[in-house]
C-alpha cells in the first residue's frame, strides 16, 4: 500500500512537471514544428510537406509537420492539444474560443517576437488588424490577411418568388409574405427547416428563428448579446434589456403566428438538422447560419442538379444598415506557450505569409502537379490528393497571393457590395462584436443555470411552440431571473463597457 502510494506520488510529480520545460532557441538544433490545423489531412500531405521542409530546413533549420484534428470531436481534440502541449503552431479562430484560450494563457505573447523575427509580416498585417487580435492588450495571433464577409442573411428561392409574384424577402413582413405566398400556392411545399441551435451560440439564442432578429434590429451583435441584453451598432455602449421588453413579447408572438401557419414542423425542436433540405427543394429558404459562401455553394448545386431553380441571398444587414466584415480573429495562427522554438515558429510563419511561392506551396500544393492556372488566371486542380487549401490553413490566407477560383468572382461581387454598404455605417467596416471576449469565471454557475433555462423555455418560445405566449414569457422571465440572470448581466456589462471604452466604441 505504501509502495503503491509512493509510486503514485512520484508519477504524479512527473506528470505535473512535464509541460513546464522551455529553453532558449538554439538555431543549430533542428526544430521540428508541429502545426496543428483543423479537419482532415490531404492524401498528398507528405509530398507537400517534404517540398515545404526542403526550403524551411535550409533557411531556418526547421521542419513543419502538419497535424490534423479530423472533424470528429474536433473541439475536444483541439482543447486536448492545448492542454497536452501537443503543438508549436496552431490554428486559432473566434469560434474555437481564441479569446478565452488566450486569456487563459494558452498562447505566447507575440509582440516582441513579431518585432524581432517578423518585421515584414507586421508591416503586411498593419496595426489595425493586429490590434483586433489583442486580448487584454497582448497580441496572441497573426490573422489571415483576406478581408471577407460572413454576414448573416436569408437564402431563398428566387425562381419561386418570381413565379408566384411575391415580394423580396427583405423585412420580416416580406419574409412572411414570401413564405405565406408559397404555402398558399403550393400547400405541400416545405418552407423552413429551423432547428435547435447547437452549443456555439446557445447562450444568446435558443432556436434558429432568432437569427431573424438580425433582420429587425440594428444590433451590434447579430442576434443580441448574451443574457437577453442588446445594444445598437451605432451606440455599442448603450446596453439595454431585450428579454424584459415588449419587443421580446411581440417577437415571440410573431414566431408563434409563423409556427401556427405551419412555416416549420411542430417537431422542429427535435429536428435532425437536415442541411440538405434546401438543396433538395424541401425548404424554400434558409434563415440561420447563412453567409455569402453558402449561397454560392447552393447556387452551384442548383446549376448542377436543378438548373430551373435559382437561389438568391439577402443579408439582414441590407435591411438594418448594419454591415461589417468578418473579424480578424476569424482565422489566425498562434504559437503555443509551451513551444520549445518560439523564435523559429515566428520566422517560419513570417516566411509562409510573406513569401508568395511558399504561401502558394502551402495553400495549393506543388504547381504543375497539384494545380495550375488557366488562361484567365483561375486556379485549376489537377490532382485531388491535394485540393484547394489542402491543409485547411485558412489562417494563412493572404489576399495578394490568393489564387482565385471561378466561384470567387461571384463571391467577390457580394463582398464589394457589402463593403460599400459597410462603409456608410458609423464605424466603417468594423466588426465590433467579435473582438470581445467574455470572462465568466466569477459567475460561471449562474451562467450555466441561465443557459439551461434558455434551452428549456426560450427555445420553445422562439420556435412558437407554446400554447400561450404571455404565460410562457412570464414563466421564462421568472425562471431565468431565479437562475441568477442579474449576476451574469452585471458581470457581462461591466466587461463590455470596458471593451467599448478601450477601443473607443461609445
Amino acid at each position: 500500500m505504501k509502495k503503491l502510494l509512493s509510486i503514485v506520488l512520484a508519477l504524479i510529480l512527473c506528470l505535473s512537471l512535464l509541460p513546464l520545460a522551455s529553453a532558449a532557441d538554439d538555431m543549430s538544433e533542428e526544430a521540428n514544428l508541429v502545426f496543428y490545423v483543423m479537419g482532415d489531412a490531404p492524401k498528398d500531405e507528405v509530398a507537400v510537406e517534404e517540398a515545404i521542409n526542403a526550403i524551411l530546413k535550409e533557411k531556418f533549420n526547421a521542419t513543419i509537420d502538419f497535424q490534423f484534428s479530423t472533424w470528429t470531436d474536433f473541439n475536444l481534440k483541439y482543447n486536448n492539444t492545448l492542454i497536452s502541449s501537443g503543438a508549436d503552431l496552431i490554428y486559432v479562430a473566434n469560434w474555437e474560443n481564441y479569446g478565452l484560450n488566450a486569456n487563459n494563457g494558452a498562447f505566447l505573447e507575440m509582440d516582441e517576437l513579431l518585432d524581432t523575427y517578423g518585421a515584414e509580416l507586421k508591416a503586411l498585417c498593419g496595426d489595425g488588424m493586429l490590434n483586433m487580435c489583442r486580448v487584454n492588450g497582448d497580441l496572441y495571433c497573426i490573422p489571415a490577411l483576406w478581408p471577407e464577409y460572413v454576414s448573416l442573411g436569408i437564402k431563398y428561392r428566387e425562381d419561386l418568388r418570381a413565379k408566384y409574384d411575391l415580394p423580396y424577402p427583405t423585412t420580416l413582413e416580406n419574409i412572411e409574405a414570401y413564405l405565406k405566398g408559397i404555402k398558399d400556392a403550393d400547400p405541400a411545399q416545405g418552407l423552413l427547416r429551423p432547428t435547435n441551435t447547437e452549443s456555439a451560440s446557445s447562450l444568446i439564442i435558443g432556436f434558429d428563428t432568432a437569427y431573424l432578429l438580425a433582420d429587425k434590429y440594428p444590433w451590434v451583435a447579430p442576434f443580441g448579446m448574451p443574457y437577453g441584453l442588446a445594444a445598437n451598432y451605432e451606440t455599442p455602449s448603450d446596453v439595454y434589456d431585450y428579454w424584459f421588453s415588449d419587443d421580446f413579447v411581440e417577437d415571440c408572438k410573431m414566431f408563434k403566428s409563423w409556427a401556427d401557419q405551419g412555416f416549420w414542423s411542430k417537431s422542429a425542436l427535435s429536428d435532425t438538422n437536415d442541411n440538405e433540405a434546401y438543396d433538395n427543394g424541401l425548404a424554400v429558404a434558409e434563415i440561420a447560419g447563412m453567409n455569402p459562401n453558402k449561397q454560392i455553394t447552393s447556387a452551384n448545386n442548383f446549376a448542377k442538379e436543378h438548373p430551373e431553380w435559382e437561389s438568391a441571398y439577402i443579408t439582414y444587414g441590407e435591411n438594418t444598415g448594419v454591415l461589417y466584415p468578418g473579424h480578424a480573429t476569424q482565422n489566425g495562427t498562434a504559437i503555443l506557450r509551451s513551444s520549445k522554438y518560439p523564435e523559429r515558429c515566428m520566422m517560419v510563419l513570417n516566411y509562409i505569409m510573406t513569401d508568395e511561392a511558399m504561401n502558394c506551396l502551402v495553400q495549393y500544393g506543388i504547381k504543375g502537379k497539384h494545380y495550375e492556372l488557366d488562361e484567365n488566371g483561375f486556379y485549376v486542380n489537377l490532382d485531388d490528393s491535394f485540393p484547394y487549401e489542402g491543409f485547411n490553413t485558412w489562417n494563412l490566407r493572404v489576399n495578394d497571393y490568393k489564387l482565385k477560383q471561378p466561384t470567387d468572382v461571384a463571391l467577390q461581387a457580394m463582398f464589394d457590395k457589402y463593403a460599400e454598404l459597410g462603409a456608410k455605417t458609423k464605424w466603417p467596416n468594423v466588426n465590433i462584436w467579435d473582438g470581445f471576449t467574455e470572462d465568466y469565471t466569477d459567475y460561471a454557475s449562474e451562467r450555466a443555470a441561465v443557459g439551461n433555462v434558455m434551452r428549456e423555455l426560450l427555445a420553445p418560445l422562439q420556435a412558437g411552440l407554446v400554447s400561450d405566449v404571455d404565460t410562457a414569457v412570464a414563466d421564462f422571465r421568472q425562471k431565468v431571473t431565479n437562475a441568477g440572470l442579474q449576476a451574469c448581466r452585471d458581470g457581462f456589462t461591466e466587461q463590455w463597457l470596458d471593451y467599448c471604452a478601450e477601443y473607443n466604441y461609445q
Partner: protein
Amino acid sequence: MSSPISTARLAQGSDRRTDERRKLIVLGLCAILVLVLFLPFFTWIRVADQDALYSAMGLKASVIKKLTPDHSILTFLSFVETSKQGVLGFWSFLLLIVALAAIALCLLAFIRYLRRNRVAEGKGMLRTYSTFQKGMVFSFATAVGTIGLIIFANHHYGLAGFAPGISLFLVPVISLVGYAISKRLEKTERVLCREHGFIEEFRRNWILFLFLVPCFVFFLINNYLPMTGIYFAFTQFNFRDHLFASPYVGFKNFEFLVRSEILHLTQNTILYNLVFIVVGNVLQVFFAILISHVANQRLRKTSQTMIFMPYFVSYVILRVLVFNMFEYEVGLINNFLTSIDRAKVDFYNTPSYWPWIITLFYLWKNVGYGMVVYLATITGISTEYYEAAQIDGANIYQQIRYITVPLLKPTFIILLLYALGGIMKGQFELFYQLVGNNGTLFSTTDIFDTYVYRITTTQPLSMGLGTAAGLFQSLFGFIVIVLTNFLIKRKNPEYALF
C-alpha cells in the same frame, strides 16, 4: 465467539493476558492522540515570516486580512484557496485525503475493537490490528508529507515562510510506536488464529500474484494514475499554471449542480435506470429461456442473430429512424393515424410519451446483447437436472421455475450489482440522440448526463465542471453499491461483488 479460539485463549497464562491488555491500552492511546492532534486546534504548519511570504505571493492587503498564521493540515486548503496559491493546492489536497483516511481508519479500528466479539469466526483481533496499522501508516504519511509540503513551499517561494508546528513531529513518532506494538500483537494473534500475513500468502500463492501482474499494470496506467484528475473538480483551470497549479477553488465547481433542479434530475436518472435494469433483465432472461428451448438448431441461431441485430444500429441512425416515425406532419405513425381517420399525436411537444418511447428503444437495442450472458449460463446448466425433473413429472413451466431461474440468479445478481454502481450515470447517447435539445420534453427526459453535457458545451475550458459532475455521480453510485453489496454479503457472501 468461536470455541477453538476461546479455549486457546483460556489456556494462555494470565501474565500474557495482562501484557496484551497493557499493549492494547497503549494502542488505544496512540489512536486517540493521533486523532486529537489532527484536530484543527493543533498547528501543523505555521506562517513564520508573514510579511515576506505574503509579499512573495503577491497578495493584496484585503486578502491578507482574511489569513491566519496557524494551520492544521485539515484547514490548510482554505489558506491555499484564499491566497490563490494553486501551486500548493494539489499537494495539500492529497494530504487532506490521506489525513481523512487516517482519521477514518483510526475510528474504524475503535469500532472493530468494540465489535471484536461479533466478527466472523477465526479472525479474532486481526482485523482490528490491520485497520489500526493502516491508520498509523496513513497518519505517518500525512505528517511526513506535510513536512515535504513545507520544504517544497519554502523552496518555491525562496524563503523560509512556513515552519512546522510541534504537533507535526509528534504524529510520526506516535504512529511509529503504535505501529510497532500492533505488529507484535498481531504476530501472536496470527499464531492463535492460524492466519498468515502477506509474505506467507505470497509464498503460497505466488503464481496467483503472477497472474495478476498484467491486470495490475493495466489498471494502474489506465485508471488509477489518471484518477489524480479528480482534483481538477476543485480547480479553476488556466494554461499559465497548468493542471496541478491552477487556483484551488474549493467547491465552486459544484455550485451549478445545486443551482439546477438536482432532485428532479436525480429522480429521472434513477427511475430510468431502475426500469432499464429490471425490465431489461427480465426480458433478457425471458427470451434467453425461450430461445434455449427452440429445438431446431437453425431456427434457434437465426432468431438469436436477429434479436442481436439492433445492437449494431448506431444511435445516430436510430435518431433519424425515430424522427421519421414520430414526426408530426409526415411521420409514419401520424400518417397511419390520419389514414384511419384518427387525430394526429404531437409526440415532440408532449413529454408524457417519452419515458415509454425511450424505454422501448433502450430495450429494443439491448435485449439481444444482454441475453447472451443468460444464454451462456443456461448452456452451462447440466442436462441431468432436467432429466431428473422430467422423471419426477415436472412440466416445462415447472422445470423453468425450479431449475433454470434459480440457476440464473447468481448471474442476475452480479449484473444487477454491476448496474447499480452506475445508477447516476445515464445512457447519454440514447437520450441525446432521441430527444436532442428539445426543452419541451426535458421534464421527463432530462437525465444527469444530458444536463451536464448541455452545461459543459456552453462553457469551454470548464474541465472543473465536468469533473465535478462526474465526481458527484461516482460518489452517489459508490454509496449505493457499498450499501447493496453490504446487504447482499450479509445474506449470501457468494453473490457479493467484492
